[in-house]
């Protein structure tokens, strides 16, 4: 049987919004089959990972906490991806943002005041943006591929973290554990709902997503990003500076990743530890695509990926599914999304072998 693709006159809007849903459903079906085949309780795994976190209202707070960094980083990455700027080093920018904010926290340790937390956040954004500035500089000045440079810098950032934890920033009263002091009350994000773990960063992530939506749809900057990505030649003709776009895309992506970093450090972690990089920077790539590079879509995608994180932990503790299964489910989602992407631009027809001979 041969598949024949027929180009649509215009990309299908319906398919654009339908395919992410299709990808999630396909992941659940394929996941159940695959995990059954390799000897796990496949159906149980899918129910634990995708449904239980949604059914258990007590788990909703965890969803918010996990979704917040994914949404922040995803929104930032999407700006770059739209402009064909492939920043895949968000994990490193997240670490650097967390470290920059931690630096402020350690410098102000023992002080009190409302200004400390905002200053930490500013440092976090600046740290992430500055770190993303390196690939931007290398790209605009030396034409270095930003995919490779931003990824290499992630490995470097993790070594910087290890160095600071082992040496200069180690808690002097910490029994030689490689971690910083615990942040003080003025350095910790307040919770916004009493008796939950939902910290201030969760509503902030939603606010940032909505702000990004307005910027991308209503401002010249947003228009420029979209034009440069969709039609580079037209953008040059229209006088848009592609170097400026590269800088803007990377700084936005790095700044938001850095913001996510300091919100995690000052939120769930409450200090800086070597285990700080948890892969949010990579998972956010999936979030950005699943959300169709649209801030509101990214909010939904961030929640879906948060479901898989929380559900993955549930499945690990209740039915003994290995922790690595979560990553497999998440990657499958991106595969299915990319596969179903074809439906947006093409109509699929089943053709007879004779007719489709040279296409296949």
């Amino acid at each position, binding site marked *: 049987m041969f*598949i024949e*693709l027929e*180009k649509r006159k215009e990309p299908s809007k319906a398919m654009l919004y339908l395919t992410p849903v299709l990808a999630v459903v396909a992941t659940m079906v394929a996941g159940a089959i695959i995990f059954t085949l390799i000897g796990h309780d496949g159906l149980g795994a899918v129910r634990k990972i995708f449904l239980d976190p949604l059914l258990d209202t007590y788990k909703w707070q965890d969803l918010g906490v996990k979704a917040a960094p994914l949404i922040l980083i995803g929104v930032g990455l999407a700006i770059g991806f739209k402009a064909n700027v*492939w920043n*895949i080093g968000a994990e490193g920018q997240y670490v650097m943002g967390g470290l920059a904010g931690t630096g402020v926290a350690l410098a102000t340790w023992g002080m009190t005041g409302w200004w400390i937390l905002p200053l930490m956040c500013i440092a976090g954004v600046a740290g992430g943006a500055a770190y993303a500035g390196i690939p931007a500089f*290398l790209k605009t*000045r*030396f*034409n*270095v*591929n930003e*995919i*490779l*440079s931003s*990824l*290499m*810098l992630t*490995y*470097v950032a993790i*070594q*910087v973290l*290890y*160095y600071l934890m*082992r*040496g200069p920033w180690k808690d002097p009263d910490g029994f030689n554990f490689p971690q910083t002091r615990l942040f003080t009350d003025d350095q910790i994000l307040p919770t916004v709902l009493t008796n939950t773990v939902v910290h201030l960063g969760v509503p902030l992530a939603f606010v940032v997503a909505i702000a990004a939506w307005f910027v991308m749809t209503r401002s010249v900057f947003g228009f420029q990003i979209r034009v440069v990505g969709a039609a580079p030649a037209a953008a040059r003709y229209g006088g848009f500076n592609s170097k400026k776009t590269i800088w803007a895309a990377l700084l936005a992506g790095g700044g938001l990743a850095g913001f996510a970093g300091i919100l995690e450090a000052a939120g769930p972690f409450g200090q800086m530890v070597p285990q700080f990089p948890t892969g949010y920077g*990579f998972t956010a*790539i*999936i979030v950005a*695509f699943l959300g169709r590079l649209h801030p509101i879509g990214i909010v939904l995608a961030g929640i879906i990926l948060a479901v898989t994180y929380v559900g993955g932990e549930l499945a690990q503790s209740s039915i003994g599914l*290995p*922790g*690595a*299964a*979560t*990553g*497999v489910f*998440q*990657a*499958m989602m*991106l*595969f299915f999304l*990319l*596969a179903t*992407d*074809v439906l947006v*631009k*093409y109509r699929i027809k089943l053709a007879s072998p004779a007719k489709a001979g*040279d*296409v296949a």
Partner: protein
Amino acid sequence: MTYSLLIPILMTIVGAATPILLAALGELVVEKSGVLNLGVEGMMLIGAVTGFAVTATTGSAPLGVIAAMIASAASAGLFGFLTLTLTANQVATGLALTIFGIGLSALAGEGYVGQTVDVFGSVFPASLSEHPTLRVIFGYSPLVYLSLALVAAVGWFLSRTRAGLILRAVGESDLSAHSIGYSVIGVRYMAVLFGGAMAGIAGCFYSLVLTPMWAEQLTAGRGWIALALVVFAGWRPVRLLLGAYLFGAVMTLELHAKAAGFSLVAPEFLAAMPYLATIAVLAAISARKTGMSLAPACLGKPFKPSS
């Protein structure tokens, strides 16, 4: 530097260089056909875990390597189906393949963490392979000699054979190649599968020769260095060889400095060295006017004949 130290240092360089050379050689062929597969790291991990699991189960390292080639090529086939048949974005699909490979290898390898297998060592008699001096030539795994033979073979294939010419034509001008009757998609599928198989051998080199054991993310980003190496080499196999050994030297510096208790700089700085060196080299190469213009013209662009 004393002579007794020189031999182990040279051998470490070869060990560090070989896997990135193998992976980069595969990616070079893929990119020459006009396809950018960023999934090298993921394919290497799939190869590493498959090779280890099969070797641990059957006791045969060659069988492990073959299984790794098949597994990694299969994952490359998935990439090919998405990007070539379904014309999905190559950058995004490559990233997905890496994320998938990290997760799948961790999942598949869970039962093998902590196990060991015999090193896939030299096939030469011990009088040569363990000779104090001659082991610098005879003391390696067969995969090392294979990697060198493959550099020559790929170089010859690309520049001297008709099939190599077609592959390059597909990468430089897909529409022309299509119009004179070559199957662009078919050629690219073959290249992508070859790249996968090579990444599989590269992955095995970590789990069967260098460590030899399985641990999550065993390859530690070396797949990305292999990708950078292809740019560094200007898409030429012989320069790939030089580049890989240069990187091998940088990585060896790290190991030996650490072992010698070299305390002037932090060990974390030494661990970051290969990545910093990669960035520096990329900057130096890309800044030259001819740098990126050596890239195959159709690199990363999807092909869809307007039938």
